[in-house]
């Protein structure tokens, strides 16, 4: 009882303590809000930047007087790849190959020129396969899960992912 009385008396004797507590509480709240806002802002900015980057990559129709100055979008890369494929196809076309072969002194083989040799274990080349290597993995999401998952999922994934990832220097 005496203790309680003493405390009440001290508080009454020092009102600045109450004021300091309020200030500290207020600042604490402000710091928490600032932290949450900071994290939110950070995530939003990163998501926006990533989205903008994706937008640039998806940009289907660049209209620009100086195409060289543009970052390569997916469409641009597709065009570059197609151009290279076409160049390769031109270089290896029947007409080009025939001209080169003739210039090197080759001529068409006739059945009489053929010599067949039995090679044990020889397997004829299999048919053409143009499927993508590891094509079963092509469905992987383009955007990292951090940008789409909830806070709860994010922390849960961090917790579950971090212990198992260690072990290698």
């Amino acid at each position: 009882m005496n203790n309680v009385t003493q405390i009440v008396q001290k508080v009454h004797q020092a009102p600045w303590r109450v004021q300091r507590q309020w200030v500290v509480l207020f600042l604490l709240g402000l710091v928490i809000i600032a932290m949450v806002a900071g994290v939110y802002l950070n995530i939003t900015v990163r998501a926006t930047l990533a989205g903008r980057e994706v937008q640039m990559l998806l940009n289907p129709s660049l209209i620009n007087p100086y195409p060289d100055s543009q970052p390569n979008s997916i469409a641009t890369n597709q065009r570059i790849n197609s151009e290279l494929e076409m160049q390769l196809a031109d270089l290896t076309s029947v007409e080009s190959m025939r001209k080169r072969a003739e210039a090197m002194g080759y001529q068409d083989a006739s059945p009489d020129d053929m010599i067949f040799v039995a090679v044990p274990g020889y397997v004829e080349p299999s048919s053409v396969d143009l499927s993508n290597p590891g094509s079963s993995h092509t469905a992987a999401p383009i955007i990292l899960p951090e940008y789409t998952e909830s806070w709860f999922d994010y922390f849960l994934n961090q917790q579950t992912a971090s212990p198992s990832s260690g072990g290698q220097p």
Partner: protein
Amino acid sequence: MKRVSNGWRFLTIAAVMALMGIAILVQIFRVQGSPEVAGVIDQGNMVWKDFYPPRGEIYDRNGNLLAGNKTVYEIDLDLTANPDLPTVKLALQMSGIDLNEVNYRISQEPATAKFITLADFVPADKTDILINLQKKAHGDPSGKNLDAIYFKAHFARSYPENDLASNVLGFVAQDNHGYMGVEEKYDNILAGIPVRLLVPADPRRVTEYPNIPPGQTIILTIDREIQASIEQILDQALTSTGAASGTIVVMDPLTGDVLAMSSTPRMNLNDYQSISTIFPGETPFNRAISQAYEPGSVLKILTMSGALDSNTVQPDTVFFDPGYIVVGGNRIEDWNGLPWGYQDMTGCLANSLNVCLAHVSTLMGNDLFYSYMQRFGLGHATGIDLAQETSGHLKLPGDSDWYPVDLGTNAFGQGVSATPIQMVMAASALANDGKMVYPHVLYAQIQDGKQIDTKTQVVGTPISASTAHTITNMLANALETESSGALIPGYRIAGKTGTAQIPLPTGGYDAVNINASFIGWGPVDDPRFIVYVWLEKPQSNKAASVVAAPIFKQVVEKLIVLMNIPPDAIRLQMAGR
């Protein structure tokens, strides 16, 4: 006292920070709530975007590119930038761009237009020149720069082999649609359809962008090397025989894979605008599938197959050929109009005796004969996966245009029409143990990065396996008996010539011109190919054994090399190990 003075300092700081926080919040709400900002946000919320997914590529069975995509440019002009039009036109002219088209496009634009397209499908080399001119003129103090010109890159179809396999491939026009051949038949899976969509401008909503699927890549059964070889042989044949047109088809009789297919004329697919010049009037784009004709004696192999399969005759059945036969009140003669005396069935085929085959078909009777012709697919399109296929015509008893004499004439390929691909499909039953396979050019398609191969389809079994072996051996013996120009040393081949009269639109037959055909397959004991040759109206000679059989031989000699087919003796020796 000292602590009390600290208290008001803290209070002051807290108050200032709180005021700053409130001020920031007020400012945020004020900015976001202002009508100007709200308008900008609404305006930029959704934007129109053009998507140009690339068209699927076409490869041959060995992975060689037959049809791809190249970059071309749309050249636009921003009129709001007050461009100097004469300077712009001069630059376009210097770049090699057709000014007539430019002027036409400008004339079609309304006077209020702010952004006009000057040219489209401009090749990269011309665009590069224009870009360089634009860079040089940039910042010109006289104001005569080219800064108002904009470039929009997009795809256009390109064919690196030019006219190779053009009859099979077809082409893609500027409307991004395929015409003829594979391009038309598989347009729906090859085409990545350009679309214009309203998409959110907010980068955070990028996941809402639609997935525009690109066109699927396809692989054809065509072998580029074989295709190039038969085209070369066909071109030489036309020159040497003076034929009006030619067709060669090569198919794997076990799978139905069309290894090569060519007819004349062909066109450079990169210059498809010339189609009306190269294919005037009703000239078929691909005669192998689009032009039915009376095949003549090559059809005798189907008649004899049906007769053998139905036990109407046996290979050693003897027939006395007086040189003519009367069917339905009409006299039918052999090709030389002379009597051939006693002939067995192999002799009938070797000497291509019309009278003998007409006799055989009359022995079979209407029901049996036409039943076999229908089983072989005559009168019906094969369904080959190429656009513009026609079905030919098989008259049947009861039809208004059928007469009793047709039973006799149809037996040797007169009065019945078929396309080369129909004949090849029918003959596949003879080469493939009685199983008739569906001819196709699609080897596989690439879907989501995975290759889906086309499976072999048997469309019918018109004859038994033993009949198929019997007729094949008869035809091989017939070739050897007549010392045919189609024979290849070391390889046993089955085949049949066909010299057919050409019906006139006014009735009767052309007294001068003929169709020369040859169908054959081999090696007899393990067929790897079936080849069909057709020359229309050859002038150097009027016998298929003289003009068509040597072409067949040339094709087979190429196939032996390109398909690595050892001579029979070596092959059997290797198989016996």
